[in-house]
């Protein structure tokens, strides 16, 4: 994290990748598919935002572990800012997903297991922010928040990767719906999709580093 605060080359990379994502995502050729049609372009926005959120949450969980091992308050700060940014990316991902679902599934909320898991996952991290607000002592807040964050992270893993596997989902790639591999025979989508993951994650990291710096200034 210190490395990312001090250097700036990756911000240019993020900028470049996102410009490429927006241009490529809207203008490149996409496979013609029934129902999906042009909405397949949401793949470059909705899915990478979720990847970015999960990567930021992984980072936050690692910093929580490091806080418990070292009792250094800076790790607590990093983990808090990463979670808040990840939460923001998660809401954006949810919003773009609902927009997409409105066109393809007919309604924004259709009781899809992945959607429900998402809502619960957001609730988990919302509770984390409430928890932080309810403790006044810095070190105690850091310790308790870190403990809860690690527990919440494992529950998120259970929610996102175990429960949706057990039931059929409307999402592409689940419950008999063809996935990415079938749609994308000529790898057109991949050319934008993979850079988009990196781009959105780096943007989240960028926001998080700015938030860390603001918090550090407020401490002075």
């Amino acid at each position, binding site marked *: 994290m210190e490395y990312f605060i001090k250097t700036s080359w990756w911000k240019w990379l993020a900028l470049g990748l996102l410009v490429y994502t927006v241009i490529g995502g809207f203008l490149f050729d996409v496979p013609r598919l029934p129902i999906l049609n042009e909405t397949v372009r949401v793949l470059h926005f909705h899915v990478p935002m979720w990847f970015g959120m999960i990567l930021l949450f992984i980072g936050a969980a690692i910093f929580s572990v490091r806080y*418990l091992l070292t009792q250094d308050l800076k790790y607590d700060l990093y983990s808090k800012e990463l979670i808040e940014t990840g939460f923001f990316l998660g809401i954006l991902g949810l919003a773009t997903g609902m927009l997409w679902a409105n066109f393809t599934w007919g309604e924004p909320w259709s009781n899809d297991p992945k959607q429900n898991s998402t809502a*619960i996952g957001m*609730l*988990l991290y*919302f*509770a984390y922010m*409430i*928890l932080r607000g*309810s*403790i*006044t002592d810095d070190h*105690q807040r850091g*310790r*308790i928040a*870190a*403990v*809860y964050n*690690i*527990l*919440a992270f*494992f*529950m998120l893993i*259970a*929610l996102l990767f*175990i*429960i949706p596997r*057990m*039931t059929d989902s409307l999402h592409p790639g689940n419950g008999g719906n063809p996935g990415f591999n079938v749609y994308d025979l000529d790898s057109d989508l991949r050319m934008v999709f993979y850079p988009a993951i990196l781009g959105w994650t780096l943007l989240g990291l960028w926001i998080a580093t700015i938030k860390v710096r603001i918090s550090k200034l407020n401490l002075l």
Partner: protein
Amino acid sequence: MNRIKTLLIKEFSLDFRTKYPFYSLISYLLSLSYICYLSFQGTLSLETWNALWWIIVLVTTTTAIGKSFIQESDRSIYYYFLLRPSELLLSKLLYNLIYVVSLTGLCYLLMQLFFPQHIANPSAFTLNGALVSIGLAGAFTLISSISASTNSQSNMMSVLGFPVAIPVLLMGVTNSRKLIAGKALEDIQGSITSLVSVDVIIIALIFVLFPYSWKK
């Protein structure tokens, strides 16, 4: 082992002497299921029966386990000198588990009394209930120790506890609905296995994390 036994005996004799926490839980269960009885007028589909049962269990166990560390605040200073964290946690976990299992069972009996429902596969149904109880007891034990160190203890218990309990509860509710509808244990083997694995993850996590949340 001796210490754990002593702690367990202490918990139960405390409950036996003060009595009100136990009776308050009973009255909680009774009034909740009676409200359901009056408002549903005896007509419940299988899904509603199942959902109501687990919701009452969730609400009651949150209240039951919430007190477990809050009431220790004046004693914990002795525990620091006398006990290892794992010993304290194990005793609390066993105590909470006994509570959750008996509350789940009692709630089941009440629901059967008010809304008779035929259970097609009782042994698998009990197994599923026991697995969910283990998960709930484990997650709530840690959450209770977390919320004991915040400023609004009883509120935090439900704010933090509900989202953490949902993965376990969701699997349990789905399983028990299928079992009531007449599926055999073999049909839901996969989800029972994932429920077991989530239980194992929770128990392992709370033993790792508890020492940190307990220290002041």
